[in-house]
């Protein structure tokens, strides 16, 4: 073999080298090929005064992961193939975290809960090969936390040795987009707090920074709201299927400590049938049949937004919910409004007649008043795309728009000048492809067929068809799990590792290579399992151990 050919082989092997196990892929990374071991008494220290408690806790978790992941490298022979290099390997005994000059400590939580545009997640990580101390520097504790997450992905274990074979490592990293989310619907089926926390942990491992909590819907109202407790008392599936105020505090702080902001969604004025359990007067067409005429799915029922009492009520409800969630973002929903429901609703028709408004004008009033209540609490409203593309309502220019119906609608939202979040059903819906769920419809398929593979999501272009100016409006994007056919029983396997594909897309930017991504994504799935998250198998283990061997054209 000529030297040139040899170099090609080496390069190819390097493309699959273990440092490629990082997910999301850092913006800038240089690695070597030395083995470096972690000292048994490996220390992580934070330099400076006033180190916040959540950073200290994150350091503690990182140390646990380092020594408890016990992930053997995914290669034929697993960790044993690296063992011969252990004896000569240098030992790393310390990682030092420090803020850049001039920066001062604030909690990870407070940094994560800033408006997306104000978050600073950049970090600089250096792991020398000679055993001298590793360092992470950043402008914020949030950046230090992201660096810790990357650091914990560098290491494999075999027997009792924790090591990397890619030292030295130098990484300069920062996300391409400030909003990298995951949406969970806890209304169609309920998820206990423990499942949400486990999901938040997993999200943080791939640097997702936004939990979009679609907490209530027409089927159930599991959120306990101070002053509005009758909603959950009468609208939750059961008294044990409620998120109490302390549950919410717990989840919000758990998320914050992991660099995740929680954006709650109180979907209005549609998707609210369950409010009728406590306030029958507030809901038009509750459980009207045939449901298909009055709603996109059963049960029908929407807020009587033309009624001033209802508008007032919702504004107050928003204010009360806003107090539970420190995020700057608050989603008011606005999807799938059904006008038939109001056509048959006598009180709505009477209210429209009395005010001389059209339904659209009434919706405009409702939207403005409820959004004003949020803005008074310092929140930025977030809406589903119909509020911009279908309805003629007045929105603040600060409003963010979730594009869900189709990625084809991104351009239209951008043309209206709103900042937008990618949540397109044709790329990011985790629930698609499992068949229809309504009864008596044996041939029913999933409305958003087919299943969205990780490859499909990964191939998404966030700025497709956008001008340079419009591209600046893209805040980021997210995967979404609607829960008609999901629950705690399948949340791990239906979400992971697929949701990691958008986590990388919006951190590293588009255009990633599928062939080199797959071995890294295997690493994510295997590491998740070591940490107790039931990530699905993407391939037979035979393939996971042999990068490239199961490619279509291999």
């Amino acid at each position, binding site marked *: 073999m000529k030297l040139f050919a040899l170099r090609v082989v080496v390069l190819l092997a390097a493309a699959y080298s273990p440092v490629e196990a990082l997910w999301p892929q850092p913006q800038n990374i240089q690695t070597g090929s030395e083995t470096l071991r972690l000292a048994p008494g490996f220390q992580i220290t934070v330099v400076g005064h006033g180190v916040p408690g959540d950073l200290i806790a994150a350091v503690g978790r990182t140390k646990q992961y380092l020594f408890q992941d016990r992930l053997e490298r995914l290669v034929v022979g697993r960790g044993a193939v690296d063992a011969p290099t252990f004896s000569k390997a240098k030992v790393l005994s310390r990682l030092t975290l420090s803020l850049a000059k001039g920066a001062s400590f604030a909690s990870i939580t407070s940094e994560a809960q800033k408006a997306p545009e104000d978050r600073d997640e950049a970090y600089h990580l250096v792991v020398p090969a000679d055993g001298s101390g590793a360092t992470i520097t950043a402008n914020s504790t949030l950046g230090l936390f992201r660096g810790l997450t990357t650091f914990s992905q560098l290491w494999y274990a075999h027997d009792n040795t924790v090591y990397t074979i890619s030292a030295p490592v130098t990484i300069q990293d920062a996300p391409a987009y400030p909003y990298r989310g995951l949406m969970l619907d806890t209304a169609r*089926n309920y998820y206990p707090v423990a499942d949400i926390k486990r999901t938040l942990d997993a999200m943080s491992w791939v640097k997702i920074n936004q939990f979009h909590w679609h907490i209530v819907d027409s089927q159930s109202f599991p959120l306990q709201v101070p002053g509005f407790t009758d909603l959950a008392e009468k609208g939750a599936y059961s008294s044990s299927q409620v998120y109490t105020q302390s549950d919410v505090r717990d989840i919000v702080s758990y998320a914050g400590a992991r660099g995740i902001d929680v954006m709650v969604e109180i979907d209005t004025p549609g998707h609210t049938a369950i409010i009728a359990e406590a306030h029958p007067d507030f809901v038009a067409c509750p459980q009207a049949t045939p449901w298909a005429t009055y709603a996109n*799915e059963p*049960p029908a029922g929407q807020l009587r937004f033309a009624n001033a009492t209802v508008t007032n009520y919702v504004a107050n409800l928003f204010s009360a919910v806003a107090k539970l969630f420190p995020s700057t973002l608050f989603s008011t929903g606005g999807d799938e409004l059904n006008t038939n429901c109001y056509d048959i609703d006598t009180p709505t028709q009477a209210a429209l007649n009395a005010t001389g408004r059209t339904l659209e004008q009434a919706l405009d009033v409702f939207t403005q008043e409820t959004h004003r209540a949020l803005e008074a609490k310092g929140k930025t409203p977030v809406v589903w795309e119909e509020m911009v593309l279908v309805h003629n309502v007045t929105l603040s220019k600060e409003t963010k728009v979730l594009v869900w119906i189709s990625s084809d609608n991104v351009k239209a939202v951008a043309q209206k000048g709103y900042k937008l979040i990618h949540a397109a059903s044709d790329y990011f819906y985790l629930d698609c492809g499992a068949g229809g769920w*309504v009864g008596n*419809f044996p041939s029913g398929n999933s409305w958003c067929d*087919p299943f969205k593979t990780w490859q499909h999501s990964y191939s998404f272009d966030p700025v497709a068809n956008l001008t340079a100016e419009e591209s600046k409006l893209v805040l980021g994007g997210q995967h979404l799990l609607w829960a008609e056919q*999901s629950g705690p029983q399948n949340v791990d*396997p239906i979400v992971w590792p697929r949701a990691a594909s958008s986590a990388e897309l919006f951190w590293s930017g588009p255009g990633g290579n599928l062939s080199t991504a797959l071995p890294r994504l295997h690493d994510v799935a295997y590491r998740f399992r070591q940490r107790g998250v039931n990530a699905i198998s993407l391939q037979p283990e035979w393939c996971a151990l042999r990068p490239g061997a*199961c490619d279509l054209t291999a």
Partner: protein
Amino acid sequence: MSLTSVLRLILCVLLAQYASALWPIPRSLSTGTSPLKLSPRFAVRLEISTPPADLLSAVSRTRARLQSDRFERLVLGRASADAKTVHAAPVLASLTVSLTAGSPIRTVAEETTQDIDARSESYVLIVTDHPPTATLSANLTLGLLRGLTTFEQLWYSNSQGTKYLLSAPLFVEDAPAFPYRGFSLDTSRNFYPVADILRTLDAMSWVKLSVLYWHVIDSQSFPLEVEAFPELSAKGAYSAAEVYTRNDIQHIIQHANERGIDVVMELDSPGHTTAISAAHPEHIACPAKSPWSKYANEPPAGQLRIASPSTLAFARTLFSSVAAALPGTMMSSGGDEVNLPCWTEDQQTMSDLARRNITISDALNEFVQTIQGVIKEYGKTPFIKSDMVLTHNAPVVNDTVVVVWQTSQDAASVADRGLRLIHQPSNYFYLDCGAGEWLGNDILGNSWCDPFKTWQRAYSFDPYANLTADQHDLVLGGQMPLWSEQSSPENLDPIVWPRLAAGAEVFWTGARLPDGSPRLGQNTTSSTHALARLNELRYRLVDRGVNAIALQPKWCVLRPGECDLDS
């Protein structure tokens, strides 16, 4: 509407709700509308002189579950909706269990591993409310096990743990339409620990499935410890921890057999065998040869060198060694997806053929005959995959059972050859379909057997479709398989349950529902009929620790009929 017709209507509605619990639905079932509750000291009285140990264990499990199940009826308000009724209900003190006079008394495990044609699972269960009595009788212990399973499904719990039903008196006369009601699990593409298999067997027994068809090895890994060739798993398993030891195998089979589940082990051959090359490269043609798509249906390529006498001898010993340790009366040699270029480009195979002056087709026939001969030597019925018969015309023995897998259309072709069959068509029963392509670097690739097979799709299967009446006897039953390219312990429960129950009911009840209506008739899959029962089964499975997926929002589950397409 007259008063009587109103009453009749109410009765019908009540019947639909209260007796909706059973899955699979019994072949003959009549129910009343009276409540009955279990005594806190509820006992099972076995009127059998020398009850076999595994029947006693089954009774213990039933009693334990009647204690531990906390499943509340799926209705608005859950158990509290029934509180008044239950308070005043008569109390049932015991269930009397007996065998028909003169019946042989054998263990459940023995009955379960009888010849597939010789099994009897029938039972009669009678529950009365005035006075409160319950009796279960059957000809054989296996029937008693099925009856106990039905009995367990009759009861709801309230928050204090009191068990009650609302459908007394109740008369069940039941027996399966087909003896073979299976689940096929692939443990080679990805490995499943023993505990996951045992949990799956438990859940299978709750819906009266009768066979675990164990696709234990394949090209990707060889997790089966074989007495004659321990090196196969030592070198071909994913890791030392990912091996089914001979102890594990016995443990799994015993666990299954005691729960009325026979185990049919498949050693897929001569294709799907690359993992053998880790220990015995001399027996494998085209191992991991590239491009794999020319030499196999999925990577890695590699097949047994069927023309080689030493490979044939190896295969004989392999099958003998495995068969000798299996108590069942059925064993499969697989035989799907053999690839000709793998052999024609294999120098050794070509020289073996030339030296022996035979064709590859001759060699394949010889291989099939040899392996079927070994299986027969051990007193077992040989199973084979349908393409070996339909595509390769392999000369199989007369009592062969053909696993019809490529498409449901193939069943008629197999039957036309006079061969017995089980249904496992990919277009109805494959649990893995619809999750997208798993091959790398295939951005637009979809699942080859798209779309996802919903429970409704599986439930709509007609075991006698396209068969003549005199071919009906050739159908032993069927099974839903889980191929594991994209599955592993992490998603085993949610990908299998409750969908697998659809297949369980199809083959328990047959081509038509017990009332004679077609399986996909008016309203069959509505949430007042099959879906109501399936939702209930799903919640029971979750209550018992099996992570069965939600079929609908709970809002719908609690309101049968309100989330139908046309409601």
